[in-house]
């Protein structure tokens, strides 16, 4: 999607991020709970770090640049899920793995392992109150 519509998506007054680790506003990005001791990152809350067992975390910004580590072109999904789409595991510039869709490919089979990607947000629907849901993905650079 274009940067312009991404800005519209994140700047809308009545919108919600699809998940709480997506932060909207002028500079949309992901955040993670990072273990103060070992640096392991988690998108959900943890009682203790699954890597080292320590229990102190700090919220940290996740880098927006990424490379495509693994993908699947999904043609069969639950009813109501539009297909095909490119599901991906990306690795961000600061070494965090994220699961998301690859955006902006007219031919899904054009996805290539190792390709450079950039974090992007877009509107993915609205509820009965007109509140918009903003999702994220990774667009081809």
């Amino acid at each position, binding site marked *: 999607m274009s940067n312009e519509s991404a800005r519209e998506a994140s700047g809308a007054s009545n919108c919600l991020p*699809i998940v709480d680790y997506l932060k909207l506003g002028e500079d949309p990005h992901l955040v993670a709970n990072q273990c103060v001791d070992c640096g392991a990152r988690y998108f959900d809350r943890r009682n203790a770090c699954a890597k080292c067992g320590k229990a102190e975390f700090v919220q940290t910004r996740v880098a927006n640049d990424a490379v495509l580590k693994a993908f699947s072109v999904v043609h069969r999904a639950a009813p109501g899920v539009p297909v095909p789409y490119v599901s991906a595991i990306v690795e961000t510039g600061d070494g965090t793995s994220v699961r998301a869709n690859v955006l902006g490919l007219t031919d899904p089979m054009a996805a290539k392992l190792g390709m450079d990607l950039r974090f992007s947000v877009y509107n993915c629907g609205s509820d009965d109150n007109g509140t918009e849901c903003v999702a994220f993905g990774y667009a081809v650079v």
Partner: protein
Amino acid sequence: MTRFGRYPELDSVDLAATACMDAMVDGGVTIHDMDVLGAGTLFQAGVGMGQRVQKQIGQTGIPVFNVANACATGATALRTVYLSIKAGEAQMGLAFGVEQMGKMGLLRGGEKDEATIFEPAGRYGAVAPVDGILGTETMPGVFAQAGMEYAYNNAGVGFKQFARVAYKNHLHSTLNPLAQYQKQFSMDEIMGSPVQSYPNTLLMCCPTGDGAAAVVMVSGERLRSMPSEAQKRAVKISASVLTSDPWVESGQVQPDVNTLTRNAAAQAYEAAGVGPEDLDLVELHDCFATAELIHYDNLGLCERGGAGDFIDSGAPFRDGRTPVNVSGGLISKGHPIGATGVANVYEVTTHLRGEAGDRQIEGAKVGLAHVIGLGSACGIHILEKSAA
């Protein structure tokens, strides 16, 4: 074991009881010889399956362990009985795995609800189902990504290598009367069948289905008091290992099926005192073609990074260096989830006894059975032909 397939006229208790009775008759023993029962089923984990089956095969008051452990459920039931015997609390025990899935279709992946009012919910504060928006939660997709990650890190792995795995397993299944599907397909048919989650096409995915398998386990001491024929047919469990997934960086977004399999394999080879080069056959967890390929590497069947060459060389075909999934594997034999981790032990055992008929791997002395369930759990059993 029962043939895997679809049994709308039966229920899972019927299937499990059939497998249990067959196993006891095969061993020349009865329910009165059993000191413990291990019962594995995933989708009916809450019903007390072990006790329900006891009503069909004999209520003798022995302890029952009902277990659920994803796709490693059957292996876990087996290991529960193994541990009871090893601990000296039991001399003989029965373990079964069963599942009745019918035509469940695609596993995982949430159905989309029409929007009403967005409200953050759950551990990630999601306002809507994220499957299909933040990547895939479906099994064909998750395992496709696992395969593609391997392809990213290792040369010589692509669509053709994955397809060849399915080609092999469909070919093998034609010799196994217990397989859900027993049909050979060409590479073109496999690569041209409908894409589920690229690179996994329909013919590279296991079906859902129904079935059960059971084994009788006995201590060495108790075995020595049994008839010589039973001693000859008994196989030795040289290793029984269960692992879970240790932390890896990407584990929170993509289940790691590799590390726990590598760990389990290392433990199993050490316990059994054998190496991958000693294996005459392997039944491994090919829920999808992409999964089988990466487990060649995880189980040490090939050089590190060499899974593409391994399948290209023909090594895992039944006439190759290390036959893999001569039963047809999950892809063709079927994957009634709770039954799978017992059925692969049945398969290896049948070969070690020399009783596998048309699909017999001649002279098989050592075999390995592997299952993995997402979440994750990995079970490995190494079996050896009896010296008796």
